[in-house]
């Protein structure tokens, strides 16, 4: 990722009704061309997901013999059987595993990064500048660098295939962005607030928990959404450090192996894919506002 997302805009939420700025005249002469062009793009962008969703509820025989669009002619022929089959076939357990991986792998880096960001923003110590520059540099380092050495180290420690192994890996890979974002956010808090806490006799530790954390919730929430989606959707780290054994396998890995073993069973693949998407979609729709704000405030994971 890049260290900075352009001139930070003030009106970054798209729910703002501020659509009159920056644009041309209201729909008029060229209005229909604009609408049609946009409608075509939106349609092309949406159809793939609709096809998946429709197919996942169609009976196996129907999926095999006709395209999902022909479901319009038999609108009542729906089934949940595909979902039942996939869930029993390991996706259900994988779903729970994904939660067990994603929640700590989101909370741990936020905690560790918030502490570090506070120190970078408000404490004096030697090497502060240099160390922060290292974090900035690490923003773009491909996480592939860690895989060969860490796989070696994990197997000598005997923690390959445990949740701990992936939590720590995700914590490390999410850390540079988190430290960078939080430090910028905390650094912009008014100095008087921190000074007044000091006058009241609070140490750094109390100031951090009682003052800085509550004030930083917008930044922490925006990052939390990213990190959670990133971990939930990750295949690489799960594949290398966690592996495919049923008691730890996560949803992405389950879907990938389904694609490998059942490449033509589209009734199962579509249902499986939709199960992996449920949690991200819920997060997306309920927190879209914060998601957009996070994007525009500091760009994304690298």
């Amino acid at each position, binding site marked *: 990722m890049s260290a*900075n997302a352009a001139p930070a805009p003030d009106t970054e939420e798209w729910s703002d009704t501020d659509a009159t700025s*920056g644009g041309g005249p209201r729909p008029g002469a060229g209005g229909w061309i604009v609408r049609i062009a946009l409608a075509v793009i939106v349609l092309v962008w949406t*159809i793939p997901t609709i096809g998946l969703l429709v197919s996942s509820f169609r009976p196996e025989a129907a999926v095999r013999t006709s395209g999902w669009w022909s479901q319009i002619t038999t609108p009542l022929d729906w089934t949940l059987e595909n979902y039942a089959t996939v869930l029993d076939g390991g996706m259900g357990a994988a779903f729970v595993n994904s939660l067990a991986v994603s929640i700590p792998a989101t909370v741990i880096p936020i905690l560790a990064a918030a502490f570090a960001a506070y120190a970078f923003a408000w404490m004096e110590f030697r090497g502060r500048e240099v160390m922060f520059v290292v974090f900035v540099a690490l923003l773009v380092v491909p996480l592939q660098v860690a895989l060969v050495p860490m796989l070696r180290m994990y197997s000598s420690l005997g923690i390959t295939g445990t949740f701990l192994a992936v939590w720590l890996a995700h914590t490390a890979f999410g850390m540079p962005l988190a430290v960078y974002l939080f430090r910028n956010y905390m650094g912009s808090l008014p100095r008087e607030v921190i000074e007044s806490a000091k006058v009241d006799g609070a140490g750094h530790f109390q100031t951090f928990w009682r003052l800085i954390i509550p004030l930083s919730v917008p930044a922490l929430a925006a990052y939390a959404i990213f990190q959670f989606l990133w971990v939930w959707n990750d295949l690489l780290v799960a594949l290398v450090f966690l592996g495919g054994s049923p008691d730890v396998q996560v949803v992405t890995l389950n879907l990938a192996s389904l694609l490998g073993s059942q490449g033509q069973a589209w009734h199962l693949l579509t249902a499986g894919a939709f199960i992996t998407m449920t949690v991200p979609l819920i997060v997306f729709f309920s927190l879209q506002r914060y998601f957009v704000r996070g994007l525009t405030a500091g760009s994304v994971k690298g």
Partner: protein
Amino acid sequence: MKLLTALFAIVVGVGGTVALFYGLNYLVEHTLPQRMRDTARPWVFIGPAILIVGLYLLFPALDTIRRSFMDARSTSFVGSKNYEYLVTDPGTRETIWNNVLWILVVPAVSVAVGLAVAVLADKLRPKWENTAKSLIFLPMAISFVGASTIWGFIYAWRAQGQPQIGILNAIWTQLGNEPVAWLDQQQYNDFLLMVIMIWLQAGFAMVLLSAAIKNVPDDTIEAARIDGATEVQIFWRVVVPQIRSTIVVVGTTILILVLKVFDIVLVMTGGRNGTDVVAHRFITEMINNRQLGRASVLVVFLIVVTIPFMISNIRRFREQESAR
């Protein structure tokens, strides 16, 4: 039972981290002599972050460079043999060429689509603008594996005479053509995989570009309009120059993401039919072939490509700091 284990794991993981910080703080405040506390305190805060980043990113980066000069099991040094192998191997050359294509095509097209949607939607009423943007943005929440499944279904192929269940072949055969196994077509299958990435990333580009466009001062646009500029001229000569830095940021962010993409290739083609990319080849060498030396060389390649971006990030950070 399964649920309980997971819940337990979550509580232990999160609780353990909180306990770690409290414990460290307690140790510093209650066991160290007064004058050492001030020196030690910052390290309670940054210590864990530094430690884990050092352990998982800094040290491995150096270690990977070292291993790239060692044999398959990292037991003895072999000089530049791995590099020679990969430079002379025709498969690798194709892989790197594919990466170049991805780097040239995906960021550019994603930015173009994102920009188009941002500009067009800006001319609609807010309700429709938001709906259109949400739908374009939605794929961002979907994993690469999920997206690959979605598009694999679109590219699905059946022999002639059978019903085509993939929408692309259905349209294609309706037009009177024979069905095509799209992903086997070496001339353009790379681009079919890139479509997936563009589908996922255009929404990201759109969000940032839209925010930047809305930030363009109205008076610059009005001034151009009074001077008689057309809407197209205004876009290219007034709006685009003012959002150039956002375009660059979005483009490089997607570029760095593209460098690391392996999931799409893994589940769509497994790197067959001339579709391999460096990050996927790395997995093949590391896990399937157990060639740690060669795998490390591929990572060194990725590091080298990202160095310019690292330098420009640091430079921009320095500029911001001095401007504070």
